[in-house]
Structure formats: C-alpha cells, structure tokens
C-alpha cells in the first residue's frame, strides 16, 4: 500500500535541515505525487550516502535514491562518494551536490535571503521543464560526470528514471 522495496519508489536523503527544506519545497510542486516518495533527513553527507547504500542493498531493484549534499568546497568529495557506492547501485543513486555551500547556489539562482524553499520551487519548475535554468548553474557537481560543471546531465538522468515515478496523474 505504501512505499516498499517491491514497488518502484524514490527515497530522498537530505544531508541536513537546509537540504531537507529544499527537498520539501521541490516535492510540494503540484506536478509531483508524494505517494511514491519518502524523505529522510540525515546527519551529514556521509550518513546520507551510507543510508542510500544500505537501503539500496536491501531493495529489489525498485528503489531510486536521490542524495542531496553540500560539498563545502571539498572538491574530491564527489569522487569519494562515487568510490563508496557499489557499481551495481550507481545507476539507481543520484547525487545532487553543490561545489560551495547551498547558500552559494541560492545567490547564483537569485534566491538569496528568501529561504531554501524558493530555491526548491525553482529547481522543481526547471526540472519539469527541460533541466534548463538553475540546473545549468556551475555550482552543481554530479557523480557520474564529476568534471561536468553543471547539474544538467544528472537532471536528465533524474528525468529519465525518477520523474515517471513522481509525476502526478
């Protein structure tokens, strides 16, 4: 009846309160259905990645994990994360990260000083669009293409594998 490992669903792991608020407002977009989504607030990026790995290893291939992290300027972290995620899970784990802190992304997206919710709304709107707008910002990093300086390709992966699961019908 609810989210479980036998049905396709999405688990969002937010590394802290700020990224949780971002995810909340993203998911509150009217185009999304919350039935197949669960949101977890974690205690830092390591905890978020560990939980995504642990839950991913338990499931039956139906779970998609979206991990939201601040890289806090640690440029090698995305590589560390990629190395920490088993190869068989990498296709089902999506990392949305920022090279600086999330505050920097807010500034770049003209959402400075108005909470993380506005940024989440903007991310959702651009996500339902074509991964343009804020997703092309160079503050993003991505696990699959660590050298790519925008979030556009990870966004496209999300659109392909996650959007069908959360689109409201």
């Amino acid at each position: 009846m609810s989210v479980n490992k036998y049905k396709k669903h999405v688990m969002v792991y937010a590394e802290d309160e700020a990224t949780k608020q971002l995810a909340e407002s993203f998911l509150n977009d009217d185009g999304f259905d919350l039935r197949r989504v669960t949101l977890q607030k974690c205690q830092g990026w390591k905890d978020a990645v560990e939980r995504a790995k642990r839950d991913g290893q338990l499931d039956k291939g139906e779970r998609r994990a979206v991990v939201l992290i601040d890289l806090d300027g640690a440029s090698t972290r995305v590589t560390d994360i990629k190395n920490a995620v088993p190869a068989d899970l990498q296709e089902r784990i999506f990392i949305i990260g920022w090279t600086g802190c999330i505050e920097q992304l807010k500034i770049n997206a003209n959402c400075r000083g108005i909470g993380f919710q506005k940024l989440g709304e903007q991310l959702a709107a651009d996500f339902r669009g074509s991964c343009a707008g804020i997703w092309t910002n160079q503050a993003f990093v991505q696990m699959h293409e660590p050298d790519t300086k925008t979030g556009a390709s990870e966004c496209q992966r999300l659109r392909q594998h996650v959007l069908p699961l959360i689109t409201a019908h």
Partner: protein
Amino acid sequence: MLKRLYVHNYKCLVNFEFKMDEDEYYKHTALLIGKNGSGKSSVAEVLQIFQQIGRQQGNLEEIQTETHTLPPLVIPDHFSFGVSDQPMRFEIDVELDGRLCHYALVLELPPKFKCLRVKQEQLVVAGKTCFTRNLADVRFSDNQKKPYTKDWHEVYLPEFIDQTIDSNGNVVALFKNWLRRMLILSPVPKTIRASLNSKSLYLKLDASNIVDWWTGLNDRNPDAYADVKASFLRKVFPDFLGLRNEPDEYGVQYLTLLFESGSAKTSIRLDRLSDGEKCLLLAAFVLAANATDGPLLCFWDEPDNFLAISEVEYFVAILKKHFLRSGQIIMTTHNPETLNRFAEDNTYILRRETHLSPTRPPQTITQWRKSDSFEGDFVRAWTLGDVEA
C-alpha cells in the same frame, strides 16, 4: 489566517503567546511537540473556546433547555493552579483579506461567585474598535452616552452584528464565520458513527458526528464529494470506488465505502473500517472541506495516531502540501516520522517542568538549538528526552 494566540491563567497556560510564523512558507503549517502534559491539548481547548463563541455559544453559566444541557464555556476549575483572584485572558488575532481582527476576552471570578463573569471584552477590526466592554457595559464608540447592557455571564461577540460592508464584505461576519468553521480534531475512531442523525455544519472534536458533518458539507458544497473521490484516498485505498449514503430497512442512512477489485465489488460501512482507515477518510473530508468551504484553520491533535507507521509520512506530507495552498494546519505529535516532515523553523517545542509550573514560551527547534548550543540530531535528542531538560 491565525496570526497570534495569547492566553493567561488558563490551565497550564500562563502569559502564553503563540505566533504563527510570518514566512510565506511557514504561515500555513505548524507542528507542536512536547511531553505529555506540556500544554499542547490546552492550546486546542483555547481554540475551541473561540470556536464555541463563533458558534453563538458564549454562556458562562450552565444552560438547561428542554432537550439538552449547554455547559459553560469556561469553568472556575480552569484557572491556572487555582489562582482565581487574577483574571483569565484570551486573545486571538486573525487576518482576513488583509484585515487584522483582534478579539480579547477577560474573565474573572469575584468572591462568592460560582461561575465566571466577563470582566472585559473587545473586538478591533483593521485598527477600528468595534466594541469594548467592561463588565455588563458594552460601548460601540467613545462618545456613546448610555452603554448597552449585557448579562455578565454571557460573552457579547455572538450577539454583535456590524453593518459595515466594505470591498471585502462584512469583515466581522467573516471573522465570526472563520471562528465557527475552525476544525479542531482529536479523533476517537471507536466513537465514529456511520449513521446520519441530523445534518450539521460542525464537526465534533472526537469526529463522532463525521457523517452528519460530511452530509451537511455536501449539501452546501456539492463539489466536496468530487474532491474526495479525486483525493489521496485512491492512493491509500487503490480499490476505493466511492461513497454511498445507504438507508437500511428502517430508513436510517449509513455512510458506506465502495471498493472494487477486478470485477468484484464490495461495500463496507464506515463504522466497520479500522481505526486508521477512519482517520484516512477523515483526512480526505478535511481536505475537501478546506478546498470547497475554506480556507480553514485545522488543529489536529496527533493526526498520526492509529496509522500504520509506513503511512504516516505520506499522510502528513499530503496534509501539509494541501494546506500550503490555502488555509492553515497545526498538528501535534509524538511521532518522529511526523517531526521529520516539518521544518525546524515551524516546529514549536512546548515544555513544562512540573505540574505546578506553567508551560514555557514556545520555542522553535531552531531557537532551541541556539539557546542550547545544540548542533546534533534533534530527533535523537528528543527521543532521549534531552530537549525537555
């Protein structure tokens, strides 16, 4: 929109002020947490007092009619810690169409009185005083020579009618309407009746008259049923087909849920659903009421009670998402899953040291973190009881 609630000398609430956040994302939702006895349900009771006044019940003495007894709005036992030589004060600030309505009611218990009386009462709308009252004397303007006299054991607001109509309509009428339509819920699923007794505009605290209320709501807003059919019920009950008010052989109507699986259909009377299923249905009705008869304020005491743990997150997320569009919802909880779906900026901690001490001023988790210099896992600290210290 509820902006502020102030209570003094009522049960554990002494000089207690609760303000909804002004932020556009937080003004629609709030979560109250705290140990048992910390004052969460007392906040609901205060809202009920205002709700009763909105429903034209402002008696401070028990009233006996031929058919029923109307209990007093507030009784002397409600004074904080028995301190009846100080007045009890209730204030509510509500913003409607950009107009701030401020209503204050002060009650006292003079020596040898057996029931409370009104000491002061005031309504101010958009900065303009509609009436002020001292004991029995009600004045509508400063230069009014002779005051209107009101029984001091009755609240005046239910009687007050303001003829002023501006571009937003009659704001006083809107305010009273807002008060009376508040949904204050602490459901007791076992008491929920499936039969229709008499249509009602008001849902009881325990939701026992849900069918009377739902039928009344549908009469007024036929779109409500369509809203329920399209609601999250189909997500939690994938086999849900619809609702019926079916009469039995004696003509008594019972609310029945229809389910369909493949070519098979079945119907289940409301009172034969599980406790959790009744709460899910109630939530669908609440959402329909807010969509078709709102915006409303809903105060739901522990909405996660009775639900399967795997349903809690979705249930809370849906309620929040819906009320973000319009209306307000205030919840209380002891459940970490519910806590997880609220931001730390609009989760308020109520604390109280002993049964002889009042509830401390509510703090958001964010404020508590600062005052306690705490940076760790709040849920963990909450579970361990560290937040209460």
